[in-house]
């Protein structure tokens, strides 16, 4: 083990995750893998305990007839079983995949019917879930042909594992997406190893590190950075329940202080949540943190600065806040900022960017972008124009990734695979530019709003609307509604607001239009106000543009009054 984590890299064979973990458990069974924090309680899991439990799951899967290459879906709440059930499937060559769990707020019938497509497409052999789910699952999907293993079932004693080579497909990572559109990203053992090797090197991950996380494991950020990578390298993880964390975000600081954690990955919204829902009186010593890494949503300079201003005095100044460009189709990270220094931010001339799609640096009144750092080892990043040519530094185009971490395709979805993956290059549909070797992400290709030939990013329009008093924080969406008659898009901004008088709503509508105009130069066609909870979200909690556009078109002629 010392040769593995101690040398800060994966030295020598074996290199696949299963062989590595089995070896860790054999050599150092009492080494800490994970400290699980839930229900006000803490439970340590060692490598020995994890592998014992995983082998019990492996035997249970065998009894359910699971073969090498079969898909095993896992829908469980936070707890030790998450890790053991996933590893157990990989140990017998099956492909595990986490799916989001059913929350008390969701309608069980809608939840399960939305999963019918995933069950059908993956042809999953087995679903691991908890007993409470059984009734609603059977009611919603009476004909589903999937074996079910309940968490409450007694696990068989482990049988000896067959000797096997762990290569090729290792697991599926289901992309976020609205109902029925989830795609199973196939990750191979080779790509996972390449990612772990390169990303650990980029952040200097070593045995002295300790990761604090509240991230769900059905998302690549939690799955790779806070489970698979540390598991391979023997880096302990302190894992909080995602539900508990959302209700009490200060738990993260408690965990960091108590266990002297060094690394944390957070989506951009979490920086805001920590600023608004943590007591201003409370103090922590967070000096142990080497880096708090913002990824999986567009990183905003303002968010990071706000956070550093609030928590800098406790040890989380701007030099500790880092950025990363990551996506499931590249296992996880593609680029990473340099730890120890604040990520670079630049200010670009808005007019030049909107009309010529290129970056001209300016000192003031521009659009600010924060760098996501450099490509990690073995990952190639290029910026592509419409004819697949490479764009030079400072030109905005589609980000395309190549190299050893690129995924193997979408599981049983060749049409989608062919559309996005060619000759080992993955078209991300994210827009960005390179500058001095660093990647800046400007938006999503699908989220680009082109109005009279001028490009606007939906994120920027929403950011502006979000600042308007009366708009519910984070609850607005800018949608380009293409008008065949004029050949251009009308932009509609839908914002959730509280109930109020018509006068008050007229004021808010006006303020939204003025606010967006002032910040982006775009006068939106319409600022539509909808009641709280109207906007449709994807399973990972992002507001879905396409779904809301559909809904908006359906209701366009009806008044959607809050």
């Amino acid at each position, binding site marked *: 083990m010392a040769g593995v984590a101690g040398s800060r890299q994966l030295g020598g064979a074996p290199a696949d995750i299963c062989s590595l973990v089995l070896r860790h458990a054999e050599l150092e069974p009492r080494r800490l893998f994970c400290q699980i924090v839930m229900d006000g309680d803490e439970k340590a899991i060692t490598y020995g305990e994890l592998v014992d439990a995983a082998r019990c799951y492996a035997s249970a899967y065998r009894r359910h007839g699971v073969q090498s290459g079969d898909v095993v879906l896992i829908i469980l709440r936070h707890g030790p079983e998450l890790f053991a059930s996933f590893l157990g499937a990989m140990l017998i060559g099956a492909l595990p995949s986490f799916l989001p769990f059913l929350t008390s707020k969701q309608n069980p019938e809608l939840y399960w019917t939305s999963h019918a497509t995933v069950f059908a497409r993956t042809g999953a052999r087995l679903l691991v879930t908890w007993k409470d789910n059984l009734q609603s699952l059977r009611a919603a999907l009476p004909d589903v042909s999937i074996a079910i293993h309940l968490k409450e079932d007694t696990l068989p004693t482990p049988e000896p594992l067959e000797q096997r080579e762990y290569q090729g497909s290792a697991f599926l990572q289901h992309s976020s997406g609205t109902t029925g559109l989830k795609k199973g990203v196939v990750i191979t053992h080779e790509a996972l190893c390449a990612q772990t090797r390169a990303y650990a090197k980029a952040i200097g991950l070593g045995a002295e590190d300790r990761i604090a996380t509240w991230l769900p494991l059905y998302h690549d950020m939690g799955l790779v950075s806070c489970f698979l990578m540390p598991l391979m390298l023997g880096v302990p993880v302190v894992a909080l329940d995602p539900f508990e964390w959302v209700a009490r975000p200060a738990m993260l600081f408690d965990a960091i202080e108590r266990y002297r954690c060094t690394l944390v990955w957070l989506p951009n919204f979490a920086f805001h949540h920590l600023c608004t829902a943590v007591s201003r009186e409370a103090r922590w010593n967070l000096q142990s943190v080497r880096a708090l890494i913002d990824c999986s949503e567009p990183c905003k300079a303002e968010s990071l600065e706000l956070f550093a201003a609030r928590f800098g005095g406790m040890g989380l100044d701007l030099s500790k806040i880092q950025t990363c460009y990551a996506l499931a189709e590249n296992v996880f990270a593609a680029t990473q900022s340099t730890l120890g220094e604040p990520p670079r931010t630049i200010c670009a001339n808005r007019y030049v960017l909107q009309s010529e799609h290129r970056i001209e640096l300016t000192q003031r009144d521009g659009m600010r972008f924060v760098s996501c750092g450099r490509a990690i080892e073995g990952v190639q990043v290029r910026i592509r124009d419409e004819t697949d040519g490479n764009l030079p530094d400072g030109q905005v185009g589609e980000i395309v990734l190549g190299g050893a971490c690129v995924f193997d395709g979408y599981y049983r979805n060749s049409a989608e695979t062919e559309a996005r993956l060619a000759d080992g290059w993955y078209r991300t549909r994210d827009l960005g530019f390179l500058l001095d070797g660093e990647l800046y992400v400007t938006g999503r290709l699908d989220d680009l709003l082109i109005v009279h030939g001028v490009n606007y990013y939906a994120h920027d329009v929403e950011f502006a609307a979000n600042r308007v008093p009366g708009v519910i*924080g984070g609850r607005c969406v800018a949608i380009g509604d293409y008008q065949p008659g004029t050949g251009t898009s009308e932009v509609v901004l839908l914002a959730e607001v509280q109930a109020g008088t018509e006068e008050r709503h007229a004021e808010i509508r006006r303020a939204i239009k003025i606010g967006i105009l002032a910040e982006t130069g775009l006068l939106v066609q319409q600022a539509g106000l909808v009641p709280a909870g109207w906007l449709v979200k994807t399973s990972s909690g992002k507001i879905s543009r396409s779904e809301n556009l559909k809904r908006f078109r359906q209701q366009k002629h009806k008044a959607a009054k809050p």
Partner: protein
Amino acid sequence: MNQAILDGIQQTMRAEFRNPSIVIDAATTAEDVDGWDSLAHARLILALEERFGVTFPAARLFDLKNVGELAELIQAGLAGR
């Protein structure tokens, strides 16, 4: 049910969700109150803890069924002080 606690919750909600017209009772759920989503819930919990000087057990925070259960949690916290 302790009316003073319900009144305190209502006042806190009005301030936290910036909506003076919110009216609640023990049966009120998150769906009944505009803007009461999971992130807002965290801010509400923090504000209630500060107002009543209690600390809620983290494990209970996300499976509260209605305002009545929230009030019971506050009452238990006050009793245990």
